[in-house]
């Protein structure tokens, strides 16, 4: 296994690990802000996976230049750019809603936000 392919696999394993840790946090944490953090973590993992989906070993950034001969796929990078901004937007809103919700219920514990059910 070359260094590049090692990088390739470790990239996806790290990313998947981040997603799984994030999901675990989402499922088991009680504090709404920790859940927000867990989501951000998972988001990062997902973004890495997006990057991975267009990644080729031994290639340069997709900026056309006389010296560049082979590039990685620009599309996933564009997607990641978009996805990051969306992630920021969602996180901003989530935090606001989460903070205000926990002010309303008197605690950041998501288990206490069960007025609506059944």
């Amino acid at each position: 296994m070359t260094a590049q392919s090692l990088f390739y696999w470790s990239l996806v394993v790290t990313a998947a690990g981040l997603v799984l840790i994030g999901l675990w946090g989402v499922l088991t944490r009680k504090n709404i802000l920790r859940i927000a953090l867990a989501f951000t973590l998972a988001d990062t993992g997902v973004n890495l996976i997006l990057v991975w989906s267009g990644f080729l070993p031994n290639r340069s950034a997709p900026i056309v230049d006389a010296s560049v001969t082979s590039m990685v796929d620009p599309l996933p990078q564009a997607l990641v750019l978009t996805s990051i901004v969306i992630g920021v937007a969602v996180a901003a809103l989530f935090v606001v809603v989460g903070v205000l919700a926990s002010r309303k219920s008197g605690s950041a514990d998501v288990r206490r936000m069960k007025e609506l059910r059944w």
Partner: protein
Amino acid sequence: MVKALAIFLPLLGAFINAWLPGKSPKASRVVSYLMLTAGLIAVIMLSIQLGAWNLRDLSDSVILSTGVGSPPLSINLEITAGGTLAAIVMYAATIFSLHRFALTTPKSQPLILALLTASLGLLFATDIFNSFVFLEIGSIVTIGLTAACKCGSRWEAAIKAALVSGLVTILYLLAVAVLYRSTGMLTLAALGNVSGASAVIVAILLLTVIVTEIKAFPLTGWGLDFYQGTSSIVAGLYSATWSLAVLLWAAKVLPLLPIGNPIIYAWIGAAGLVFSQLAGLRASSSGRIMGYSTSAYASLLLVAAGTTTGAFYTQTVIVLMIFSSIAKFSLFMLGNPEKKDQWSGFGTLLFLVPILLLAGIPPLPIFWAKFAFLAHLASGFPVIFYAVLAGLLLEAVYLFRFWSARSEKTGEKSAKRPSAVAAVLLMLLASVWITRMSWGALDFSGSIIESAGLRNIFHGLFAIGTLLCLPGVFNRIGREKSYWFWLLISGAALTILPAAGNGLTFYLLWEISAFAAVIGVSKGTAASKGTFWYAVFASLSGYLLLGGILLSKGSFAMAGVPAVLITIAALVKMGQFGTHLWNVRTYPAAPGTLPAFLSGTSSKAAVLLLVAVAVNSSSASLPWGRVIAWIGALTALGGAILAALAPDYKKMLAHASVSQLGYILMGLGLASILGWTAAIYHTIHHLIFKMALFLGAAGVLYRTGTTEFNNLGGLVKKMPWTFAFTLISVISFASIPPLAGFGSKWLLYNGLIEQGWLPVLIVGMFASVVAFLYSFRLLHGVFLGQLSPKNAHAKEAPLPLLIPQALLAMAIMVLGFKPTILLNFLVPVLEKIGLSGLAPVIQGDMVLTTMGTWNAWMVGLMVMGLFGFAFVFYWISGHKPKYVGQLDIGFAGEMPPSADEVHYSNNFFRPYQRALSFLPKIHAQKIFSGVNKTFNMLGDGVRALFTGDGRTYLAHSLIFLLLLFVFLNGGM
């Protein structure tokens, strides 16, 4: 250019509004309306250009290409014909709700416009990442609007929506990555190119995302909480724009998913439909009920995606989703708890139309789609068909309960007349328009009942029954005003019913008649409970009928399961054997002359249905005629006993009605000429006397304001004519010669003995003797005995009620004295349809069977002659007595202190009740509450899933994902 305007104008509006509202709310509203109107016009132009209004091919489309180059490099939006129709709804809903938002949260306008843009974008998106962007806009705006609305649980609703949207984001992007990694493309069409292990991953990820987003069971939880927690305006806008967009987007994506056999969608949908609707039975908040209904439609979408393809799929989905969105939108807009609306008159109607629409009641548009869709299921997917049918019935139950709970709040008049009328007209227009899709056509060319004679009898019965109820509508009070309209519609539908040429037509007219009557009943003061029961049982019989018709592919020549379903439908409609509950609750609650119509006329539709099934079967008989006859006999007996013990005039009549219909069943079950003669004879007879009785009851209620026996009595003095007509009807239904009732019994007994069905005969005879108990109770409880001072002001019933009664009483006399007029017509008709047994022989006035004779004319002459003689003899033989006051009786040498104290009414047949006490008390009420309890338990079991903890919903999604993975790997 129009294409771009149609989609992006709201966005420009949103951007402009981000700056304007702080400055000038008015200007910003003007901008919004301008942009929206212009966009709406653009969409309408597009829809015309695409021929969407033609409805023939909804998948025609134009492409709006964006960026540079063409897909897969750039992104296209595909504007489909069906999509433009949905877009019109979205625009219209946004325009309608804008001013409500302007009132509550003026600064939310950019968000509303952004939501519309996102909905439009998602609706037309062809790129998977592009869809993601629009999905995110939708989620964010939804969360934002919810958090900013003025309702109690908004934070919780917002948090749950946010949690779910977070998970959806992750799953969706993973799917995007895997898709791109394995195909190198991001168009939706590329989904079909994925293969191997990646296919499974993409499929499970996207299916989980879709099921979560459309809120289909089992991933409904967050949607329920969201609908319940958010304000009704937000929920309304959401369901008409975003929810609709997501559903139609899902409809677009589902067939593309690399999932192998799409039937799995149908199974998820069918199971989800049953379970979620079970849980829906337990919902009480209006938002939650709408949530469950949304879930039902989401499940329907899954079923459609799994079982249908091509143009039919598109049409079904578009119609179901668009109109359910409209319905939900209207319900949310109307049921705005923040304004504490009070419903009355047209307000109730306005509220009812969307409910009927959601429940798929004809002739509203969803009906056509549901009918065609269910027909499709019936022809190839029986198990799914039954599940869907059951789910839809459950949905109807809670929708109607919801409505009855809402309409209980009566109050000041609301000026909703124009909007109500407009809503009804619009829906009817839409319905007519929808029929352009080739979804089975109405057929009046050849009736399902070939025999013109039989047909004409029923035509006549329905027409006359309706007409005789109409004069009485002039006497009505307050909110009962408008029931005449629904009576007329129901009656008109019934009158046409015998001419129906196929199952669709029959079902359509049947449901129109039933639900027009439901609306009519709802006009009664304090009728909500009665309306609910009627609506539920009407739905039950409607769905059974639908099931039967569809399983036999629209024809009435049926046997086996369809025939059984239809028979049960008829029995429910007639209130037989336990289902009498609805009669007993509905008739007392119905306003004015409507009970007369329901009991006298409308119940005969069930007779017609049974006749139709029988005449189309090979041996001109009903399946299990003996069972039906037994059901009839036992109902006749049980109904009679219950009627005797009933404490209320109208309730007694309701029980009596059920009981008398039992005789018709006995006759029909016989499948012999004599039996059918008896059945049709009794059908006519029952119509006559029951209408007369209920019209009399309407008069009594009108003059005294009560129908409780304990408050009535002695009215003969005040209402002699009503009494006279009631007396004639009573003598007739007690089968005492010489009036008409004896004929039906005589024919029936002869028929039963001819076929040797002696046990049925005995039960029937016993029931007819028990009928004396209630016939006297009725006369005495209302008209005889002591007049209560409470009713001293009562007058004779008004003429519009009396004249029909007089006509009916005359009909009873004619039929009683000269039954041969009818029999001479009826017997030859019945001889032709291939029934077994011998026909009665008619010689002049004499009717002969192999064993018995009956000369009604001579009996009539004898009775009248003797009575006349006795009368005259008394008259000329001595002094005429004087009338003395009602209290002047031999009362232990005293004048009784008050009329109420000497009026024997309470517990009239107590000894009889005591004698009956050895019977176990099997109340139908208890059985039904047992059923109810069971369903509640099941519902509770299901909804225990929805714990209210947002993380649980996330766990649901992930578990669903895992199960899908296991299933798909096992299956592939």
